[in-house]
């Protein structure tokens, strides 16, 4: 039974072909593409509105130089939200439960911000390692602590997303299998479990969207620090 629970996170292959490629590329087919006429349909309008307001909110504290990251972060946000929410449907595979994928997003983007910061204004970037107003005896320790926290950021980004989604999916599996096995013998307990499952599902939908947002928000914060 314990082996079974983690089977859902195995990267699916078919005859040796990795299906994760399809799992990554297929969701964008769900989105409407802009029509050549002037007024778009409801889906397109909503999508435009969503991406527009999201980018406006994320990039308002960042200065103009960092606005070149707008396309990247908008794409990342849409991608992560799609993968996360589609993974809540039954019998689907969520690519963002794979640590490899999330680290592949977190490390390059974080490293890009750090390298940009050290290239353009190295003193300013190094200055981030010491918060203002620290008492002098604490300075050496604090610098070490701050640099460790700087280096741990990509790990935190990747693992946060992976852990949240994996935990959510695991819980759903656990509670649903508990409810299923109790369904015939102890129906009341099973109904309680089903109620729990409903709440959990709602929570998972929220977590899926929030985790994607947090990932992109933290990246924008790292960008704001270094640009």
């Amino acid at each position: 039974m314990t082996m079974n629970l983690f089977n859902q996170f195995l990267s699916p292959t078919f005859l040796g072909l990795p299906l994760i490629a399809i799992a990554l590329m297929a969701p964008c087919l769900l989105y409407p593409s802009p029509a050549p006429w002037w007024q778009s349909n409801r889906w397109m309008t909503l999508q435009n509105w969503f991406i527009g307001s999201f980018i406006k909110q994320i990039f308002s504290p960042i200065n103009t130089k960092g606005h070149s990251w707008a396309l990247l972060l908008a794409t990342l946000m849409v991608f992560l939200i799609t993968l996360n929410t589609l993974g809540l449907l039954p019998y689907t595979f969520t690519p963002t439960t794979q640590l490899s994928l999330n680290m592949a997003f977190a490390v390059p983007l974080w490293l890009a911000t750090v390298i940009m910061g050290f290239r353009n204004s190295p003193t300013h970037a190094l200055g981030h390692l010491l918060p203002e107003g620290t008492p002098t005896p604490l300075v050496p320790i604090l610098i070490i602590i701050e640099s460790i926290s700087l280096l741990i950021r990509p790990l935190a980004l990747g693992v946060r997303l992976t852990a949240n989604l994996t935990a959510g999916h695991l819980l759903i599996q656990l509670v649903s299998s508990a409810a299923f096995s109790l369904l015939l013998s102890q129906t009341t307990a099973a109904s309680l479990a089903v109620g729990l499952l409903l709440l959990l599902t709602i929570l998972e939908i929220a977590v899926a969207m929030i985790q994607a947002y947090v990932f992109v928000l933290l990246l924008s914060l790292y960008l704001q620090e270094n640009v």
Partner: protein
Amino acid sequence: MMSRLVILSANSLKGSGPFGAGLVHASRSLHTSSQSRAPVPPLPETGGKVRHGIFPEEIFQLLYPKTGVTGPYMLGTGLITYLLSKELYVINNETLSAICIFSVIIYGVKKFGPSVAAFADKLNEEKLAKAQEVKDLAMSGLTQAIENEKKEQWRVEGRAMLFDAKRNNVAMLLETNYRERLHMVTNEIKRRLDYQIALQHLNRRLEQEHMINWVEKSVIGSITPQQEKESIAKCIADLKMLAKNTQAKATV
């Protein structure tokens, strides 16, 4: 890989930046056929009709001649029964989670669907209203310009009256000026003539006085003392006679 997502993000960010126009013009070079988009056929107002949210109405219409109204529902039920009985679809824990997630989705769509659709429609309406406002503003500006032009044309017709009035004004001014000058000239001439007259009067008077003085002087000079005595005696004699006469008249 994320190219399609990038495209959709790019399209929604297309308005900003110099890349927008460039993308469109760059792809023009790849157009091989000379298709033209005008006149554009009218687009349908609503999407395809669906029953129960997913199944297109066309399936029901397709099956209606052969199986009537309940056809598609029988098809669905039969299909599900077949899958379950042959254990092609096994009911397990995922089924429960599927029921949960689908009920949440259906609840969400039923509850928030109309308001989200109204919101999207409102966004579109605002976009349309903005463009309409621009058009209306342009039109009202142009009609205003036309009215102003007509007014100017009307003003031009009244130009002749204006010129007449001005001409009259100027003529009056000239006339007044002429009369003033005439008056002045008359006055000046009269003054000069008066001066000459006064001069003549003066001359005459001087002459008269001079002559009178000379006559008097010569008369006085010509009276000898004897003549003076004789005249005085005569006067006394005349006076005595007169006195006698009056006395005589008084006593009578």
